[in-house]
């Protein structure tokens, strides 16, 4: 059920990533509440458990293999939210480090096994055993059924995702681009194994662990995970890890997890056909599949199982720690409203960029160039990026900008935090539909162009006092009104942001306790109203202050730059680069 790279089209992958992210976010927020309890160690136990249980490959009829997931028991003990996190952590580590499941399909796999599995298992278990006492046998068979349904719904989801691919994505000759078998073949083939062997394995695991916990750790089954110790559970895990070599009860791969090579080898072709109701694979490896399958080569293999299991467990504990840190951050920041948070971080980033002090302090390569040359040169490069029809050319300019940034003492961290991440988030929103409509190539162009242009602008702003940028624009014959508006907008954004922050703070100091979302939305709305009023007032007053000092509707700017020979050389370099990029790129 671990869908590899290349079996789902990029659009399907993107959709499923989008589908799973809200669940991750919600889960992180909920896990935060349990941080004072044993939730975190438990989370890693179940992530590790799921990781190891998935290594126990069981033979399925038709020569393929299948495995339990461990999602049933995770959802029962952790609740659905933490269970989503636990299973997702296991799946990510498998995909990234062991090549089990694709990188592009992490969203899909987490959605199928993590989200669907957890929700189905939890609902089933709760419905059947809600008011049963902890030691009741009803809980044991409720857990069994929960596991069975969970793994089968997960498998069904995976089968549907795989089965719709050939209907949706074909090349000009009508051959499938990604997963080759349609729904009519994928669903029976996938479900055959899960309704039987894998389903039974999951049932046994869920019911067995619940029965075990009823005797050893009944508090874990009471919902509140407090007070229970995880030590015996870890012990069980270690034993399981050591047993994993015997866990490889069957060789061969699971249905729908074949490598590109399996498509060509006659022996495997025969096996796959047998597992797929006698339907032969296409003679050629699907083009899209072949391309995507090369995307990621995992650094580790399951080949030596014990070390793999132990490495996996170490990775899982690390990952769970990261989750704790993440959840803590969410908790700390919760005291501020979303509006405040956004304002504060915007303020910090833009004030930093605006301050001439830090720029003049750090003497780098780019700081020394005449600002007019910088503005003109970087504008030329941006034009070249916008016009480029070759990803290589865009990449080249990006590398140039990156090198310049490093030589100018701008840290990568700063660039990432203030330029790349925001742009990626923003263009990601635009690029996601673009992938659906025009394919990944145009999305790559969009993101590449946006990131490169933003890096160039960031390079300019981070090495040049804002005032000089404005002056340079002016001395490059930009209309004065435009420059003045740009400058004042920028300046008054601070004023308004600061006022907004002050107002929010003043209000918060007058309100006791935390606000409900409704209250804080109301507060934000009225604050925005007052703020708008204030900014009108401010701009009116500023206009008066300008008039008072002789402003008559036209802005004048004093420019005081003097270009040296070096600056002319830089200008030449920029022109040559941009010219070259335009020539090569189009």
């Amino acid at each position, binding site marked *: 059920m671990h869908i590899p790279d290349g079996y789902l089209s990029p659009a399907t992958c993107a959709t499923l990533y989008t589908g799973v992210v809200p669940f991750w976010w919600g889960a992180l927020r909920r896990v935060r509440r349990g941080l004072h309890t044993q939730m975190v160690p438990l989370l890693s136990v179940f992530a590790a458990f799921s990781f190891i249980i998935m290594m126990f490959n069981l033979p399925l009829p038709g020569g393929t293999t299948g495995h339990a997931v461990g999602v049933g028991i995770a959802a029962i003990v952790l609740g659905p939210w933490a269970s989503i996190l636990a299973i997702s952590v296991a799946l990510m580590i498998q995909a990234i480090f062991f090549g089990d499941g694709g990188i592009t399909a992490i969203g899909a796999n987490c959605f199928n096994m993590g989200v669907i599995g957890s929700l189905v298992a939890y609902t089933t278990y709760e419905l059947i055993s809600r008011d049963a006492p902890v030691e009741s046998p009803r809980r044991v068979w409720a857990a069994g059924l929960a596991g069975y349904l969970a793994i089968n719904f997960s498998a069904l989801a995976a089968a549907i995702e795989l089965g719709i691919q050939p209907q949706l994505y074909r090349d000009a000759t009508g051959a499938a681009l990604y997963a080759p078998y349609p729904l009519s073949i994928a669903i029976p083939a996938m479900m055959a194994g899960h309704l039987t062997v894998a389903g039974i394995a999951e049932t046994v695991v869920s019911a067995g662990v619940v029965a075990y916990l009823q005797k050893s750790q009944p508090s874990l089954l009471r919902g509140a995970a407090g007070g229970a110790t995880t030590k015996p559970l870890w012990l069980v895990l270690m034993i399981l890890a050591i047993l994993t070599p015997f866990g490889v009860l069957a060789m061969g791969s699971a249905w729908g997890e074949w490598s590109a090579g399996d498509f060509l080898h006659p022996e495997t072709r025969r096996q796959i056909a047998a597992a797929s109701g006698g339907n032969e694979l296409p003679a050629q490896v699907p083009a899209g599949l072949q391309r995507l399958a090369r995307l990621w080569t995992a650094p580790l293999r399951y080949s030596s199982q014990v070390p793999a299991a132990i490495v996996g467990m170490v990775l899982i504990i690390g990952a769970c720690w990261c989750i704790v840190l993440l959840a803590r951050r969410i908790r700390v920041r919760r005291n501020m409203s979303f509006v405040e948070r956004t304002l504060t971080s915007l303020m910090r980033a833009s*004030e930093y960029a*605006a301050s*001439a002090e830090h720029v003049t302090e750090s003497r780098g390569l780019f700081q020394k160039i005449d600002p007019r040359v910088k503005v003109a040169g970087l504008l030329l490069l941006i034009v070249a990026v916008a016009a480029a029809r070759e990803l290589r050319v865009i990449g080249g300019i990006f590398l140039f900008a990156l090198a310049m940034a490093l030589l100018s003492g701008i840290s990568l961290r700063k660039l990432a935090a203030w330029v790349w991440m925001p742009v990626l988030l923003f263009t990601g929103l635009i690029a996601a539909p673009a992938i659906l409509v025009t394919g990944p190539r145009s999305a790559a162009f969009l993101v590449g162009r946006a990131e490169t242009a933003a890096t160039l602008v960031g390079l300019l702003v981070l090495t040049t*006092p804002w*005032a000089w940028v404005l002056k340079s624009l002016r001395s490059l014959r930009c209309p004065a009104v435009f420059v003045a508006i740009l400058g004042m907008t920028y300046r008054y954004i601070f004023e308004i942001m600061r006022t907004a922050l002050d107002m929010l703070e003043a209000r918060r100091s007058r309100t006791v306790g935390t606000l409900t979302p409704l209250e804080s939305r109301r507060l934000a709305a009225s604050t925005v109203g007052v703020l708008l009023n204030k900014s009108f007032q401010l701009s009116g007053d500023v206009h008066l202050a300008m*008039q008072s*000092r002789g402003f008559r509707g036209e802005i004048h700017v*004093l420019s005081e730059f003097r270009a040296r020979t070096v600056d002319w050389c830089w200008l030449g370099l920029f022109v040559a680069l941009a010219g070259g990029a335009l020539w090569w790129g189009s």
Partner: protein
Amino acid sequence: MVGIVSQAFVFEVRNVTYRYESVAALDGISLSIERGKRIALLGANGSGKSTLLRLLNALHFPESGGIAFNGQPLARDAFDQDAFAFAFRSRVGLVFQSPEVQLFNPTVFDEVAFAPLHLGWPRTRIEAAVAEILGKMEIAHLRDRPPHRLSGGEKKRVALASVLVMNPEVLLLDEPTAGLDPRSESQIIDMLMSWGGDGRTVITTTHDLGLVEDIADYCFVLQAGKVAAEGLPGEVLRDVALLERANLIHAHRHRHASGVIHSHPHTHPHRHD
């Protein structure tokens, strides 16, 4: 209106009313300001001091009544002519109460150069004048900083410098020392006072009675948009009933060792240096 002016007065304000939407800020105010004098405008919050200064600076125009500058009426249409507008703007400077309003340029240098640049001075003269005033105000080291990132006191100095650089013959100061530490306050007062003389007129608004005798030869007490009293600082400060009416002083209530509660007006006419 125009007929009654005399060249001894820089400003003559006659029966001026001005309202913001529904609030009457000035309510039939009349006063005359003598050339070369240092004038204090006293008044509680909301008494109309800032509004009056804006009218004197021809940023707003009276709803009724009239204002004359050196005998010439300040009317809206007079400012349509560049020559008159530039002449007036370079002769009358206003430092706003809130420096936030006044500082809108990207650097301190540009801020201070704004007025001369827009009044059409030649470039070399601008640079010399800016350098001189920055030195005088002790802010030369802030030259390339963005004004909105300075401290409150530094902002105030930049705001002052941006007006003083024009060397105006009438200086309108709206609470120039509010928010300054004691050292800066006395420094700035000394500066501004040495600025007066040479036929220059300085009009300062304040509600700090302790300052009045230092900054003014003559003062007006404003109350609800009207002049409630005027006179020499010494006389005005002694008129406790007037000051109390104008909300410039409050009863100072304290308990003596004998246990008697004693109440008298808190005038605080002395400055502690």
